[in-house]
């Protein structure tokens, strides 16, 4: 049986790892998590982003959720907003595509053009 006391151990270990993590001027990843998004599979997408960001030990990246973005037929929709407020909208996301977006866009700064809403509607 797991016990909540195990959190003390995790707290100690985590404290050693994190030095300074600020989300003030970082990249924000926003996942549409309304009825349409959830039904289309937004939950595994969001959890994939969280996992991938931890795996690559990225600082200054926050993952959050929002309501319906308005294009339900293209869900799951994910918006990546950089520190200057520039927004890239990715559509029809999956956990695999999420991993790709983290590597190519978040880490290397190259927008995955083929996954964006612009590519989808062309």
């Amino acid at each position, binding site marked *: 049986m797991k016990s909540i006391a195990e*959190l003390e151990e995790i707290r100690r270990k985590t404290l050693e790892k994190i030095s300074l993590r600020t989300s003030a001027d970082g990249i924000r990843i926003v996942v549409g*998590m309304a009825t349409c998004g959830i039904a289309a599979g937004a939950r595994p997408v969001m*959890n994939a982003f969280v996992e991938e960001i931890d795996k690559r030990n990225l600082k200054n990246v926050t993952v959050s959720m929002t309501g319906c973005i308005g294009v339900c037929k293209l869900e799951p929709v994910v918006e990546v907003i950089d520190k200057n407020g520039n927004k890239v909208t990715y559509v029809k996301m999956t956990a695999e595509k999420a991993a790709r977006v983290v590597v190519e866009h978040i880490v290397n700064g190259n927008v995955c053009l083929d996954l964006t809403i612009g590519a989808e509607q062309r």
Partner: protein
Amino acid sequence: MRDLSLHILDIVQNSIKANSTFIKVHISEKPDDDKLALEIEDNGDGMDSDLLKRADDPFTTSRTTRRVGLGIPMLKESALKCEGEFNIYSEKDIGTKVFAAFSINHIDRLPIGDIGDTMIALITANPDMHFILKLESINGIFILDTAEVKKMLSGEMPEAGEKQEGENQYCVDINEFAVIQWLKEYIDEGIKNIFGGVLNEVDS
């Protein structure tokens, strides 16, 4: 929706939108009438009696992007198609309680799904929200209270008497990945212990 955990994620979004600070998800087995009860309770804005009457209408919504809102109607549908029950109680400025019951052995009952995934998604995105997850069956009771988790993470152990200057620096956030990962395992184990053998989709 494919399973109950997705319905929960969806209904809780309503609570978040309604400015709740406290959300309780209670899943319990009622062995005497073979029902699985799901209760989602919040302390948000609530609804007045007029809106409450229309809440299970798919053409009622608070959003502005379109004129349909399917979260509540779909949960109602999922409950009623397996001879379950559905109800909403709400009071303006006090909060809302959504209740759904499902006949456990009915062929159309949705599986419970990945409750752990739902909870960690909610906690990651809403670290300041106070969530309680309560699971209950003849096997016992499991409770996850994020207030308790945060207390542990703040480093304010009851037995550790000495308080340090600038204690925030010893505090770990609840949406730190190691914590989220632990929460997921903790909830998965809770589901297994409480609903294993009770719901046939959960291994005991």
